[in-house]
């Protein structure tokens, strides 16, 4: 079809030209400019900024909280996808739509709400804070909002795989005397691994870059609850563009690797699925 299309259908060079032009202007040139700026800092300076004490703890907080949140979401996402696909219950459609709220809700609103819900005088904080669970201005709070932000990613990757799953294998396992748990553990779960891993990476990648919601709940204390994105903004506000760029490049390199990992995982799970 390919070679025929290019001769018959209009617009190949036009759309190729325009897509490349627009993408270069908006995406590729800014990315290149950032790396060029980073290269002009000089290796020593770059390394000093990137590996400073404050930066290191910012990476640790960013990666740690994103990782834990994505991990929590693997379990929550599997649970919700399972319930949505396998069971019938009233108001299921509304329930299904609610999964997407974190995608549609502006992150600053999420941050605002979570930071006021869990303070000592808040709706939920009044019960949690006396129990010693402090969710605002702590890493726990960052994990909480990142869990909220990342939830749809895993549900929406696992759900279609569960929907398409053939009941034959389960029935065979049942006929051969497996208990329900054994069937789940040895028949259903292995087919879900690729999609769970993809969902995990999507949520993790999203968490790494998240700024809007975290800035409200974390309190942004250097060395404690400061994430990398907040550190970049702090540097920018001090007009330390070089330092901000250096840390941004670390994040960028990591995002690109995540993008490649996610793409590989997606094609793997597609093959696995087929």
């Amino acid at each position, binding site marked *: 079809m390919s070679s025929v299309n290019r001769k018959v259908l*209009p617009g190949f060079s036009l*759309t190729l030209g325009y897509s490349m032009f627009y993408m270069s202007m908006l995406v590729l040139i800014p990315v290149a400019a950032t790396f060029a700026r980073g290269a002009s800092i000089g290796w020593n300076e770059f390394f000093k900024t990137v590996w400073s004490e404050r930066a290191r703890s910012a990476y640790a907080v960013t990666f740690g909280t994103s990782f834990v949140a994505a991990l929590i979401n693997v379990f929550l996402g599997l649970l919700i996808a399972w319930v949505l696909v396998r069971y019938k219950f009233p108001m299921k459609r509304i329930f299904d739509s609610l999964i997407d709220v974190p995608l549609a809700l502006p992150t600053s609103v999420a*941050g605002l709400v979570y930071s006021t819900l869990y303070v000592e005088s808040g709706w939920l904080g009044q019960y949690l804070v006396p129990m010693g669970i402090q969710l605002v201005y702590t890493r726990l709070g960052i994990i909480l909002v990142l869990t909220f932000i990342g939830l749809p990613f895993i549900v929406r990757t696992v759900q279609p795989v569960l929907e398409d799953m053939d009941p034959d294998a389960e029935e065979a396992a049942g006929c051969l005397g497996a208990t329900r748990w054994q069937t789940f553990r040895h028949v259903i779960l292995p087919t879900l691994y690729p999609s769970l891993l993809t969902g995990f990476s999507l949520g993790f990648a999203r968490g790494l870059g998240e700024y809007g919601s975290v800035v409200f709940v974390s309190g942004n204390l250097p060395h404690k609850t400061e994430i990398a994105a907040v550190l970049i903004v702090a540097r920018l506000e001090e007009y330390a563009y070089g330092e901000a760029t250096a840390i941004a490049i670390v994040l960028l390199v990591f995002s690109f690797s995540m993008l490649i990992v996610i793409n590989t995982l997606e094609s793997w799970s597609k093959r696995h699925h087929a």
Partner: protein
Amino acid sequence: MPNVRRAHEDPAWVRGLLIAAAAGVIGILVVVPVVFVFVEALKPGLSVYWNNLFGDPDTWHSIKLTLTVAPVAVVANVIFGIAAAWLIARFRFPGRTVLTTLIDLPFSVSPVVAGLMLVLIFGLSGYLGPALQEDGYRYAPHVVSFAGALLTFVLLSMFRPSRSRKSIVWKLLRPAAAGAAFIVLFGLQVHYEVWPHGESLKIIFATPGLILATAFVTFPFVARELIPIMEAIGDDEDLAAVSLGANGLQMFWRVTLPNIKWGLLYGVILCNARAMGEFGAVYVVSGHVAGQTDTMPLRVEKLFQEYNLPGAFAVASLLTLLALVTLVLKAGLEKKALPKASAKEAG
């Protein structure tokens, strides 16, 4: 038979337990926060709520600014999305996979980093900053004329009759007309002195920067929705239109667009929700001048910092309403946008 049935059905107590657990998770993570926004916003009473939204000139300005920035960014990304989807779904060419991956790139870049990129280019100490500060409109005629030439070229390509693809006249006409458009537009702008001299053009800490940052962050939405839909629909109808003698515009307007319209709307709605709610990227380029460069999400943060919680929640309630409307439309469109595509895929 009953035995086989039981093999993929869970016992009632497991079902009940799991449904309750899932409902609990969604309740605490999603429902309580959404309800909380409206309760907090309306707590001081309706008139105070109204006053918080429309009585405060800075808040009112932020609403207007969001309603300016988001549509521009969405329209730009719709044009790109249609072009990219047509390119990727209809043609095979070297670098196609790379292009598809690159479209997703803005999704994985932290919004803050996206904003920083723009500051590094257009900011005062950025690559173009000093030139823009000194004489910001120097290249405005060039840019406008180039856009005009591009538009001429595109329109001519779309009106080109499908039978004349090999004709030498059409091959020469397009570049010639585009060149003429460039020269005429350039001459007109210079002659009538449309652009001021020696004045600075602000991109960062001004509306153009907000638009660029928003467009960057929402860049993949429309293309990502359209590519699978166009692939699923297939190229039969487009090919039929062209072979029956339709030119590019006729084919697009009467065949391609009607086929993808619901999918396109779906993409636009998601893109718009993100554009209006974007915080990180916009935060970096806005400079937070209340009443000038604060969009609604930024206004929420500023009111929160000023301990004006009712005000913050009032603005947040509007944004939440937008999110809920988006979800309702999305749920309605999913049936329309996707079954057609999936039916064709199966067939």
